[in-house]
């Protein structure tokens, strides 16, 4: 583009963009890898002119000038092609000659990424760094008081229960009157939350499933993974690996005909069924799998034609209340597997969470409640939904737990917390904090994408192009040219690494509390924070 172009209100220069490409002419060999790999095509070869002036101040000697042309890497400045900071150029560069740098001031692109009246949409997580979970400390360390346990030496049985745990007398009553008691699963307290086959690439999804299977079968860790809303490959449905899978049903109902057809052939029951009512990172905004991600494969698994947009509305059309939802869908899902499979709803953390929870306490079919907080997130949504809608998980899970405690049911309905655990990498600490605030288990999504597959996204808006299927790591793309960059075996190995190291770290936290065989669910006397108001709000200790 000519430097002498007429400017429009949305004509930006490199300084206006959030990311600047720093290119080193000295190191560059003009190999073309950076421009070839850039997912958003924001790099191109540029032709530059260099002027050399030879001067001579002597009389009768003339000065001269000459132009030389050189080639180099140029960054595009139009909003559609602005650099997303993924640094794949750096990854591909053989000479470390290129690197995106974050702008040293507020970018101007933010005012222009609504061209044509279309607000910005993106993939990834909430663009807000930090959070309360990282500030919580574990202050109750057994010093010759409780039996001090050694995380490295002692045996641990870190398990949690998924399912309705009725008091013994009620269980007896249930058996007597109904011939049935609610099914309960003993599972690992860290769960891979719902990310659909479709949102994730085949390589990523298979990697996650394979890693989970490995953890279960080789390492005896009963880790579970939720399918997200997009069905489940028929082969998994008909394999013993199904027992490690939580099937999700949500407002788009994708893939459920394939699941239903597979029921007669199932070797094992699925772990559970999760009914999704909301996603923490974008409550009120539905899901949308764009047509270009709906290839033949995705279409086959979801039971839809290829190449069409697949919206999941923010609401379930036929259900208008939680009572109705529990009465209709929960029961139907129980019926599908002869009342052997726990069924629980997942909601966005919200100031209305308690209303949902209170309804669940009155229904023995409710196997738990998963609450998804605003942080983290892996979905594609409007920027405004992702950044401003939602409720932090900490106080929401705390309120819910204390509410159950007030009802005397804190051990009956397990709460599962999600949304921001491990946001800054402190997964075990965040998960332990959530557990001690009252969660029976913790769901992770964003963290596993980063840790198991090398997702480049960040809370400061790096990459975050999952929604358009251009994931440069092949995690969220359905394009074989991208997802074949990811090897499912490598992902599986990383899943194993993540869970093993998480396990050690969790032990390092719970052992000094004297816990080795029961999770410290709701053990809030172990928690402290150096903010008075937060301490008061969460009903934990204020420590300075």
């Amino acid at each position: 583009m000519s430097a002498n172009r007429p400017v429009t209100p949305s004509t930006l220069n490199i300084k206006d963009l959030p990311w600047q490409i720093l290119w080193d002419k000295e190191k560059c060999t003009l190999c073309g890898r950076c421009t070839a790999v850039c997912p958003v095509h924001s790099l191109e070869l540029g032709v530059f002119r260099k002027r050399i002036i030879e001067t001579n101040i002597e009389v009768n000697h003339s000065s001269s000038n000459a132009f030389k042309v050189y080639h180099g890497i140029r960054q595009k400045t139009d909003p559609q092609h602005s650099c997303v900071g993924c640094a794949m150029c750096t990854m591909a560069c053989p000479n470390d000659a290129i690197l995106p740098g974050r702008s040293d001031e507020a970018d101007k692109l933010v005012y222009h990424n609504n061209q044509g009246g279309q607000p910005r949409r993106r993939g990834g997580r909430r663009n807000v760094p930090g959070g309360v979970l990282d500030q919580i400390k574990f202050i109750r360390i057994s010093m010759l008081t409780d039996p001090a346990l050694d995380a490295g030496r002692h045996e641990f049985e870190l398990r949690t229960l998924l399912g309705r745990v009725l008091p013994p007398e009620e269980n007896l009553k249930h058996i007597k009157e109904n011939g049935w008691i609610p099914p309960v699963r003993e599972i690992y307290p860290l769960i891979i939350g719902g990310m659909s086959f479709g949102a994730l690439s085949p390589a990523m999804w298979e990697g996650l499933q394979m890693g989970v299977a490995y953890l279960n079968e080789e390492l005896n860790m009963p880790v579970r993974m939720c399918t997200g809303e997009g069905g489940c490959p028929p082969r998994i449905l008909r394999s013993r690996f199904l027992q490690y899978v939580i099937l999700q049903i949500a407002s788009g109902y994708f893939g459920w005909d394939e699941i239903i057809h597979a029921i007669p052939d199932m070797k094992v029951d699925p772990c559970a069924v999760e009914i999704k009512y909301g996603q923490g990172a974008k409550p009120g905004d539905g899901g949308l799998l764009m047509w270009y991600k709906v290839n033949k494969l995705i279409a086959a698994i979801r039971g839809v034609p290829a190449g069409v947009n697949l919206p999941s509305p923010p609401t379930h059309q036929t259900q208008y209340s939680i009572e109705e939802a529990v009465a209709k869908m929960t029961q139907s899902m129980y019926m599908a597997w002869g009342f052997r499979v726990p069924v629980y709803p997942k909601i966005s953390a919200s100031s209305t969470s308690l209303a949902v929870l209170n309804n669940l306490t009155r229904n023995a079919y409710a196997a738990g409640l998963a609450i998804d907080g605003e942080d983290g997130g892996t979905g594609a949504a409007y920027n405004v939904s992702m950044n401003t809608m939602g409720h932090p998980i900490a106080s929401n899970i705390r309120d819910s737990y204390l509410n159950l405690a007030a009802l005397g049911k804190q051990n009956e309905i397990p709460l599962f917390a999600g949304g921001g655990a491990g946001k800054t990498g402190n997964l075990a600490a965040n998960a332990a904090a959530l557990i001690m605030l009252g969660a029976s288990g913790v769901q992770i999504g964003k963290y596993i994408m980063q840790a198991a597959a090398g997702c480049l996204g960040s809370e400061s808006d790096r990459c975050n192009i999952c929604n358009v299927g251009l994931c440069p790591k092949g995690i969220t793309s359905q394009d074989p040219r991208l997802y074949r960059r990811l090897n499912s075996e490598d992902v599986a190995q990383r899943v194993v690494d993540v869970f093993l190291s998480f396990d050690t770290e969790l032990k390092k936290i719970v052992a000094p509390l004297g816990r080795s065989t029961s999770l410290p669910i709701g053990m809030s006397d172990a928690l402290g924070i150096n903010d008075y108001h937060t301490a008061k709000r969460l009903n934990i200790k204020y420590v300075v």
Partner: protein
Amino acid sequence: MNNKAYFQIAGKEEGFRIESRILEERVQDAVEKGERRIEIQAFGQQGIGGRLWKAGSESVHVVIKGQAGQRVGSLGFPNTFIEVMGPASDDVGWLNAGSQIVVHGNAGNGLANAMAQGKIFVAGNIGARGMTMTKSNPRFDPPEIWVLGSVGDYFGEFMAGGIAVICGVEPQDPENVLGYRPLVGMVGGKIYFRGPHSGYSDADAKQVPISDEDWNWFAESLKTYLDHINRKELFKTLSVREDWQLLVARTPQEKGGVENRSMSAFKADVWDKELGRGGMIGDLTTMDRSPIPLIPTSELRRFVPVWENRKYTAPCEGTCPTGIPVHKRWRLVREGRIDEAVDLALEYTPFPATICGYLCPNPCMQACTRRISSMIPIDIKELGKASINAGTPDFPAQSGKKIAVIGGGPAGISVAWQLRKAGHEAVIYDTEETLGGKMVLVIPESRIPGDILSAELERISSVISHVHLKQKPGRQETERLKGDYDFLVIAAGAQKPRTLPIPGKERMIPSLDFLMKSKKDDIDPGKKIVIIGAGNVGCDVATEAGRLGAESITLIDVQEPASFGKEREDAESYGAVFKWPCFTREITEEGVVLQTGELLSADTVVISIGDLPDIDFLPKSVEIKDGFVKVDEFFRTSDPKIFAIGDVVKPGILSDVIGAGRKAAEAIITTLRGEKPSAESADMIDTDRIKMEYFDPRITGFDDIDQCGSQCSSCGNCRDCGICVAICPQAAISREDLGEGEYQYIVDDSRCIGCGFCAGACPCGIWDLIENEPMG
């Protein structure tokens, strides 16, 4: 044992148990006083027998009877020999630094915890956490413990040195002599054991064969042990080498972790086995899903380059109303084919010299991509002027189709020229004796040298029929022509001057009349002339008036004059004054009176505010709109047999009417072929694709035609420079000669990585980088 030989210390005094502190003081006191054989009647006192350093290098023998408390021999010294005559409590030999302790019974938990030297011989079983945290200091012999039966749970945790021997004789648990989870965190030492076990920390310890050296040491030491616990009879039973196993710590290098199944083995042996070939979705797709590198080639490239030579129109060609491919002429110049470059223009216009070289304001130069970069446009004028020497092309034999053209001006000549070139007979009807219309009649010689124009008209006259009408045709005659010919083209121009309805309007001379007369030097403008209407025609009038002697030349307009280019420059060179806004009230003998009352005195007043076509002669079937003939994009009127071009349709510059003639001719030719005319034209190239950086921005003028050719960026049309071949990092691009001067650049897909360097480097914007075909 001779009691008398031992100094007696009682643990009870006057019926009360004495404190551990008191007992310790009494033992230390006795040793200080020289007692070397001490017998203690213990009542659970702790730490008996430790710390007896006061005896120096002399041995101290301590016999404990009764109930030994915890920590017998703790912090023990090498001079100390302790014998517990029954079972011992917890932590025997805690932090032992050398004493030898014999326990004639079972011992409790924590035996030898943190012991660094010395030996403990136990004649029974021991409790949990034995031999934990033991050390081995190279300055001393390693610590040893010997257990006759079995050890309790968590044996040997964090054991860093020493030797433990577990004989498995009457063990507490006959199924497991090592207890539950032994050797977690073990980093050094050896464990000899005999009997069954239920596993140990595989991550920390490993079993090794017993070497001869080890066995020799063992057999010798076994005798000593059995001797101390008075069980010599067991030697035969315990000295069967095959019964013994030896465990040692893994080295840090060996502790890499438990050998788990590799993920690829898991995938092959577990995952794919359960799911079937191809894993999770092997039943749904047969597509290759194997991992690929970041920068692949061939069909795995995300982008592919395309060579789009001549796909888009260059700005010069695209803006030329006549549609002349100007860049192509410069290419021919670059190739040294200057004659062809000159001749090429006649394909498009019969007036390449007159118009391109003189009369045209050259939109091609206005649009030249170089101007975007503030560089001077390539000068077409010179090439235009050179076209006077263009060779007349060969015209084909006539097809028998005949087209009548009314009007012998540039529009009529253009359409006739193109039709004739296509082999059809075009007959021009005009009221003038010579062809050329306004070009001949009204345009001043200052703008077009007469010899140039007549040379081109001569070239035209040699091939085009011309019927000289004595008077303007009427409607009937036009109808007749329409019947006689296959098509009729109206190119009669606009000659009816627009005028102003003001007093004295009869005093105004229409500009066309003035120019026609001035060209023949047949008018005297006087000293003062006022021209109403300051457009380019007004400028021509001013120039001619100047030439003919006018000294005061004023052009007035109601708005800022729209005149430009050479016409305006010429007028200004005669000192013409432009005034606006001026509204004329009346024309008097004195001159022009404005509505303000101002008088612009004038000998001659010329009105030059445009001309309207004469439409009276047109058949009724031809629809008129706002005084002009209405045509479609192919210049067809509402009468399918009649076309109209030029000023009868819309006022325009000369190149517009030449282009209209060409387009109308094309439509007629196509229609005659029995086809529908089509208006498909290529899009203009996006000038962002052109790289002006290759050209010198400081050029302020061109020396010659060759320099023009070299500085033309040849937008959208390959210069054949080969920069793409040079820039391609993969050497994937090559030039393919197609013969007859044709060529193309091709990409080797198996080498190309889709970097787009070709597109980035191409000076002409030929290469583009597009997304590869969707996959999967």
